[in-house]
């Protein structure tokens, strides 16, 4: 059995500065060993995360932002925040790095087959939703799902992630994309306002639809009631949580909400599951 | 290992070396056994820096600061003098003798004083055994 604390040796293949203020960068990592790559892709399901590891700086759990079909790399979008993320922001293509994963449950894509998807993302938490949407938009998966609607809100247009791809989505017919920013800007073509308000305005139909929600806690707190108001039942509202983590495999104890561990039993939970757990987010 | 020179950590305030030659010497020509830790002011030297040096196995510690009334930050040197001399007393009661830890307050007109000072200190340290009492780390360089 493999040691669950030992990271895969990886290298950074490409670094993309995502936002105009450069607090968000995407890192594409490639595997040093073939067997690690095979192991990773045999398990990977969008919505999962990895523990990135830089010796001396520790580890940090980061959501996976690439779909498996994109290539032999794994993408992570990292916001500069604490000790680890500051360190990774200083790294360049070609630098070695460690990675453990994929960890967590990911989105139950099989369960959702045949249904409409409503994807709601805010800020940098959009990364795993991006991976999921990309996965679904692939020709071999697209037919499994009905209509796809995405709503992506950022504070301003400069903070929008994956701009070229989202631009392309706007022109596609198999996905309906809404974008929102908090304050109006001159050449902005889309919605202006907070995600909950825009969502209420869009008024998506709850029938046969799954809502997937990832965003900062404030956004989540105000968007959930809107979804409920629109008629989405709690078992069809999915969200992904964040906690401080160390081990990532349910041993070290700190990421629990009630008896569930976010790292092992999550990070994706339905609103129904969360309602049954103590309120400690 | 017998001939190994005593390791010295030199904590140096960046303002007090007035002469260019001395400055250059400290920055580029220090003997290999002396490590320079440049600080913006002697008042910036946290006892933790000193302790890290001690735990890392430094045989001697020199703290260089400005003369009274010459501190760039008005009274950083006074602060350093108060706290660090007490810390020196404290360390000496726990296993790091005072003679291994010296202060040097520099004068503006001082020229070529630091070189003999270090040499003399080194000579003195050579008469002592390598410090082991508070050494807890087995590496040669240490950070601060």
């Amino acid at each position, binding site marked *: 059995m493999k040691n669950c604390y030992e990271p895969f040796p990886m290298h950074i293949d490409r670094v993309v500065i995502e936002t105009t203020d450069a607090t968000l960068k995407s890192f594409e990592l490639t595997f040093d060993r073939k067997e690690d790559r095979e192991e990773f892709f045999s398990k990977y399901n969008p919505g999962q995360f990895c523990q990135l590891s830089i010796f001396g700086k520790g580890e940090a759990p980061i959501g996976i932002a690439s779909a498996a079909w994109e290539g032999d790399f794994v993408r992570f979008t990292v916001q500069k925040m604490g000790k680890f993320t500051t360190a990774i922001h200083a790294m360049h293509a070609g630098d070695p790095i460690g990675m453990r994963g994929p960890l967590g449950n990911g989105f139950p894509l099989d369960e959702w087959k045949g249904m409409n998807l409503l994807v709601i993302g805010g800020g940098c938490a959009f990364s795993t939703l991006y991976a999921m949407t990309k996965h679904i938009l692939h020709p071999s998966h697209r037919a499994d799902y009905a209509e796809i609607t995405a709503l992506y809100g950022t504070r301003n247009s400069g903070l929008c992630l994956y701009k070229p791809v989202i631009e392309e989505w706007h022109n596609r017919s198999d996905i309906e994309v809404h974008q929102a920013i908090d304050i109006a800007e001159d050449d902005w073509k889309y919605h202006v306002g907070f995600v909950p308000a825009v969502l209420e305005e869009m008024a998506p139909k709850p029938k046969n639809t799954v809502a997937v929600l990832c965003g900062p806690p404030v956004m989540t707190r105000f968007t959930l009631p809107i979804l409920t108001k629109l008629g989405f039942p709690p078992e069809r509202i999915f969200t992904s949580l964040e906690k401080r983590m160390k081990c990532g495999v349910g041993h070290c104890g700190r990421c629990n909400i009630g008896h569930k561990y976010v790292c092992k039993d999550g990070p994706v939970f339905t609103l129904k599951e969360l309602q049954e757990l103590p309120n400690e987010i | 290992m017998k001939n190994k020179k005593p390791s010295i950590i030199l904590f140096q305030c960046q303002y007090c070396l007035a002469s260019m030659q001395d400055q250059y010497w400290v920055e580029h020509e220090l003997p290999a056994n002396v490590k320079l830790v440049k600080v913006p002011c002697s008042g910036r030297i946290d006892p933790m820096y000193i302790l890290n040096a001690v*735990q890392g196995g430094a045989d001697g510690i020199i703290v260089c600061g400005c003369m009274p009334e010459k501190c760039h930050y008005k*009274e950083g040197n006074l602060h350093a003098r108060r706290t660090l001399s007490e810390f020196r007393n*404290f360390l000496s009661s726990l296993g790091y003798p005072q003679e291994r830890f010296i202060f040097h307050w520099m004068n503006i007109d001082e020229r070529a004083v630091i070189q003999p000072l270090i040499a003399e200190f080194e000579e003195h340290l050579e008469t002592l055994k390598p410090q082991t009492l508070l050494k807890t780390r087995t590496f040669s360089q240490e950070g601060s």
Partner: protein
Amino acid sequence: MASTRNIKIQTEAKRLLQEKAVDVVIGFKKGTLPYKMQPCFIHDAKEVEQLELNGLCSNNLAVYLNHRPKGEKTAIVVRGCESRVVQALVLENRHARENLYLIGVPCIGILDLQKLQADEQDPILAVEEEGDQVRVTYRSGEKTFKRIEILHDACLHCNHPQPMHADMVIDEPGYFEDQPYEKSYLDSFRKLSIEKRNARFKEEAERCIRCYACREACPMCTCEECFVNHSRPQWTDSTTNPAGQQAWHIIRAFHQAGRCVSCGACERACPMNIKMTYLTDLLNQDIFTEYGFEPGVDEALLPPFLTLGDDQVKFTDQQEDNHAG
């Protein structure tokens, strides 16, 4: 039967709460074990009968002042050491003195559980204090001690058992009188060879399990973030290895130089029975010799590391002497 001391404390607490002079009274109440007392927070005048003070009250109550809601009017039962903490913290601008009401109690000393329970495998079933006598019932039988035999070392070396700066003092005799500053017990340590001192220090420090009970029990440890928790940069090992253990004990003590009131709460909180007040006492003795300063005693004098006094002049003179000589 409540002792007259306790009754007087209760009466004062009741008066304060009834007159709404304070929101809460912090004191001690009976614990769940015969040899432990619990800190308690009385909000209601009806509950004052819980208040008690005896030799088993091992904590320094002033530690709770750091966690009380802002602006709360707090009355606190203080012995000598606690009263000095309050004064020291007020000087450091940690608390507003006008929000505090100190119920001073002349100290009767704190019993040392370690001395009380020399054999840890022989549990204590009851402790009764009667003046100078302390009767302890163990599983193996009864034993009577003189109070002085089982007092905590910090209390034996205490020179200000009488509460200072208190708003009222309970009129009951304490066990000790105030004395001039002297920590002569340190002499035997200072006289040891450097190797022996070092060995003594290591023997204590390296039993540390890094639970930080000493830090949390200390009323003077008021930092928002402790140096051991700091991650950028990481100051020292957070592991229980000698480097980390020694660094913790050295720097913790040093942060208390000229601040520690020598109450010994750290030692009594330590689950591993590590001796550590001697470290801060060593520092404080130096500071007393150098500056004549005792933490928490004077109402206006700042601790030596918060002020520079007339160092500018003194230091200049000293340097001039050096150069002349």
